[in-house]
């Protein structure tokens, strides 16, 4: 029978520190590129429609994940939308307090079937079902990022 040595004292525990030394440069994809370019250049929201499944995907997808069809029909959605879920975070990723607290919502833009995640701002709190509108950065400050939207606020 082999010996089964254990570490008995907590003070004998040893850990070796290290990290994961890479970073990532993501492309946005064929659909993502167009979505954020439209947001950047024209300040408008686009989705892709699958007529067979009666879905409008926002963010848009180049294919329908339900039926696998190629989606070529782009359609404008929003800019207003409806809050479908909402939550306020009081703690940051590293566990400390978030000041001010961050309110995130799942928002269904008018005409879209799927939901967009973003922040709620200029508000003391929204309920599910509340109508919201986006507050965009000025055109010359937009970069083609989801943060080109500052937040959504109640209409």
């Amino acid at each position, binding site marked *: 029978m082999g010996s089964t040595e254990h570490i008995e004292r907590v003070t004998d525990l040893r850990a070796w520190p*290290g990290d*994961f*030394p890479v970073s*990532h440069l*993501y492309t946005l994809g064929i659909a993502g590129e167009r979505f954020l370019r439209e947001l950047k250049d024209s300040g408008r929201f686009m989705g892709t429609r699958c007529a067979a499944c009666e879905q409008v995907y926002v963010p848009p997808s180049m294919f329908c*994940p*339900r039926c*696998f069809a*190629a989606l070529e029909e782009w359609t404008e959605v929003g800019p207003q939308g409806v809050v479908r879920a909402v939550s306020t975070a009081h703690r940051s990723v590293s566990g400390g307090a978030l000041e001010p607290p961050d309110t995130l919502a799942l928002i269904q833009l008018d005409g879209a079937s799927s939901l967009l995640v973003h922040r709620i701002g200029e508000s003391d709190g929204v309920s599910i079902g509340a109508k919201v509108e986006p507050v965009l950065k000025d055109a010359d400050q937009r970069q083609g990022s989801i943060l080109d939207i500052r937040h959504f606020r109640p209409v």
Partner: protein
Amino acid sequence: MRKVAVVGAGLTRFMRRAQETGPELAWLAASQALESCGLGLKDVDSVAIGSAPDAFDGVHMKGEYLAPGAGGWGRPVTRPYAGGGTGVLMPIHAWLHVASGMFDVCLVVAEEKMSTCHPHPQGAFVTIFDNILERPLEPNLIWIFALEMRRYMETYGITKEEIALVSVKNKRNGLDHPSTHVAEEITVKDVVESEVMVAPVNRLDVSPVSDGAAAIVIASEEVARRITDKPVWIDGIGWNLDTAYWTNRDLAYPAYVERAARMAYKMAGITEPRKQINVVEPYDPFSYKELHHLEGLLLADKGQAAKITADGVTQRNGNMPVCPSGGLLGVGNPIAAAGLMKVAEIFWQLRGEAGRRQVPGQPKVGLAQAWGDLMQVGTVVVMRVD
């Protein structure tokens, strides 16, 4: 157990960097594979997704991330993983899905987007080494290949020039592959004079990192016979893993590839592989690996794969064509997709659909093999057409 066949296949281009996201690449390959056999997503019962470390694409839970593009919406999905061995582990896994009787059609999708990883995908491999006893030495992934190549060369007296013939052959074969981004006409001299990376590995000994996706459709006998007159049967599967304590192994011979091969040969009823297998796609991320693996697959005597290569046996018109696709060296290396690309190649070769890459003589039995992890895993499939 039920007979299982590959009935369709699809590939994207392999690229240094794709604009498409991972799911988009997956969909491009998967939809093509379904289209190639006249099936739709509604015909798919289960999905197997293959992708190597999440660190390359830089997304956590890569299988779930890829799933919408791999047909995984609302279906049973699994993601088996074996590093570079994944591409051939996929059809093995899908075989289990279908042979068990649980599913009739399994869609198999492999994808990799290595370009996302900065400063270089090699950096992600730093975590393949032991965190405490090896990483402080700041190793580069290529060290283990170089150390294995050196051991292999010295044990059997093989020269760099002999090994370079593999790069020459595969990069030339790759010129006929529509996915390639790295094929070219080169000479042995080009290889041995190319930049030394980690001796004895030179730049042209190494397959480049790539983005890309591959997909195949696997079906039960009943479905296969209904939709195609040339189902390619998966006759044998084998897989085997060696210890992660790689410094305690003799790297001259990949014993785990042999064990995987024996498992597949036994199942397929192959008793004389050199005679019975007509076309071979072993994993060739580095030039010497093709030779190393041919020996592990028992298709060449130990230390003799270089000789049969020099003799032309492994050319497309030779007695045992090896990597007629061009392999990783000739087409590109989006890790999991590269292995599945080899399975797709055997599929097309056995059906006579490989176009300019077609090996003559109407091959009936083919083998695809992948390899990966810390010089650890062998995955093998033996395929046959009636």
